[in-house]
């Protein structure tokens, strides 16, 4: 793997500190809203960037179809999070709050220029690093992103024909 993208792995204790503080910083700098999960600004851009990397290879080829499919999967992730217990919604909120902070993003993901401009290659590289990271917190953050993205995608009937799943018996569904 390219070392340039892996420098953030050396951050060690500092990264852990940021990770621990990130959610709190995000909550402190945002007006206290409802307890339920909300996603806006850079946090929203982070999800918009991560979902296509997770679903790479499963998304339709055409540009318009691809864009619609990503939007629909992101919407599915939202819906899934809103059904989680409030304490878990807060954990997910903290994760996205952290991803929205530029210094934390650079330190923990190596993505330097903002989520909107990040390439799929860069996103995939940080996901792969988080997946096997020595910090349990980053591994479990990867796992949450994995389950939310892939779960939201394959929950949709639109994804089924590509995998040969006929769906439930129509007379009863």
């Amino acid at each position, binding site marked *: 793997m390219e070392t340039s993208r892996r420098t953030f792995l050396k951050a060690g204790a500092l990264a852990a500190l940021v990770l621990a503080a990130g959610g709190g910083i995000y909550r402190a700098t945002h007006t206290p809203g409802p*307890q*339920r999960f909300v996603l806006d600004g850079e946090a929203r851009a982070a999800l918009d960037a991560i979902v296509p*990397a*997770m*679903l*790479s*290879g*499963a998304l339709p080829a055409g540009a318009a179809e691809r864009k619609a499919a990503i939007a629909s999967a992101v919407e*599915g992730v939202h819906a*899934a999070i*809103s*059904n*989680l*217990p*409030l*304490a*878990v919604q807060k954990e997910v909120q903290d994760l996205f709050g952290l991803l929205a902070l530029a210094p934390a993003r650079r330190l923990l993901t190596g993505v330097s220029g903002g989520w909107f401009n990040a390439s799929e290659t860069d996103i*995939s590289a940080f*996901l792969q690093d988080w*997946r*096997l990271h020595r910090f*349990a917190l980053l*591994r*479990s953050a990867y*796992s949450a992103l*994995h*389950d939310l*993205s*892939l*779960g939201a*995608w*394959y*929950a*949709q009937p639109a*994804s*089924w024909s*590509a*995998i*040969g*799943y006929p769906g*439930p*018996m129509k*007379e*009863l*569904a």
Partner: protein
Amino acid sequence: MNDFIPDPIQQGIARGWHIVDGAALDTDRTLEADVVIVGSGAGGGVTAEILALAGLKVVIVEEGALRSSKDFKMREADAYPALYQESAARQTLDKGIKILQGRTVGGSTVVNWTSSFRTPPATLDFWRSHFGLNGFDAAAMAPWFALMEKRLHVGDWQGAPNENNALLKRGADRLGIPSGLIRRNVNGCWNLGYCGMGCPTNAKQSMLVTTIPSALDGGATLVTRARAERFAIQGEHVEELLCTALQADGVAPNGRVLRLRARHFVVAGGAINSPALLLRSNAPDPHRLLGKRTFLHPTLISAGIFPQRVDAYAGAPQTVYSDHFLHTSLIDGPLGYKLEAPPLHPVLLSTTMNGFGKDHADMMRQFPHIQGMLALLRDGFHEDSPGGSVQLKDGAGVLDYPLNDFLWDGARRALLSMAEIQFAAGASAVRPAHETARAYTSWDEAKREIAALPQALHMTRVASAHVMGGCTMAGDERRGVVAPDGRYRGLANLSVHDGSLFPTSIGANPQLSIYGLTARLASGLAEHMTGLPAPRPGA
């Protein structure tokens, strides 16, 4: 639409069942009863029917909503948030194990895969020798299992196993490994394969269509979308149960409170939630046992890719098992495991299997050719397998279940056994659910590679659908918070009737163990409260 399937819940509501939906409350409420039962799953359902038939006034309180066959559309997107704890995304404290538990009227019995096993005699023997549970041997329990088997229509499955299950048998046969057929609690099953999303035809004899309707016909009251917060305890007496009513989606409180008062209280919220309720209530626990010894049958998963279609989403989900690897060592030796086949549906498979991007998408495109196999580790019989402990985090029960080397040893052996069976059955590739595993294309390769996989937290996928223990039943107070009659020690009017009673894991899918044990405990409680012989529920 499935208007042609009769819906026993809609019919019961039309008959005038007493149902209080917490989400619809516009004022606080107080209800009085002879017995308040917390939870409507296997333990709560069985208890509710027996006590109601005994003529007692029963209130059942359930955190989930009342759903029925008209709602069961066989779609994961709807079923997981509607019917499972935490949208089927409950996890242990360190997020090392995913936990599937029901949260709906009928509890996990609404979403389980219908596998029905009596408690293995070796498990009951262990409870006698290590937990002082005399009188719970196989002969003593047999009439209770027989009673509930009849009540819930447990029987041999008449159809042929689907290919997903047949492959387990075929591979095991070729290796000389004995396997058996699973009995199921179904009546008129359509062989659809969607048990995990609520039975759309009411064939599965869950609590939702059996004991709960019977209790409601007998005058019981069902309170739904209400979370049991804590018992108000005075000395040795439970005065009342305080419940928080929830909003319609079941996520947040709606500001209303229910007070449930009764002569006796039965806790049947399932493992994790039952001990958590008692912890929140500061129930007596002089030996610091409450919530401890919680077991999961930590489960490993292996995906076999076959040249032929397997269609693991179709047909009765579990019909073949093998107990061979439960018997290769002593029960208190290295971890043994039970082998079964899980049904595969797109969300369940895609989130369970490791990887992302193109690698994951390529695997998913083989979906109809994938056979799922799982190994349930029999935890709780060895000193290095103490299980987990339930703790409170912001008031909610969370299970801390550390994964240790003893368990990883079992995980590695289980992944090897499953791969060997899948190749013996004709798999062209086998992919263990593990972050650094690949699809191996021969048993020689798999054997070498799986043996070398790092078995570690978040690397090996571990899941559980069987949460047991935490309110251990034992012959004396130093080994368990609950006495052999189901009474909670130190409280005069509180019993525990659910899988949290088990002193170890079961070593088999636990539903019938819960039915049989709680039928016995509820019958004893009914006799004690009425002074009359307990009624015998009949199908």
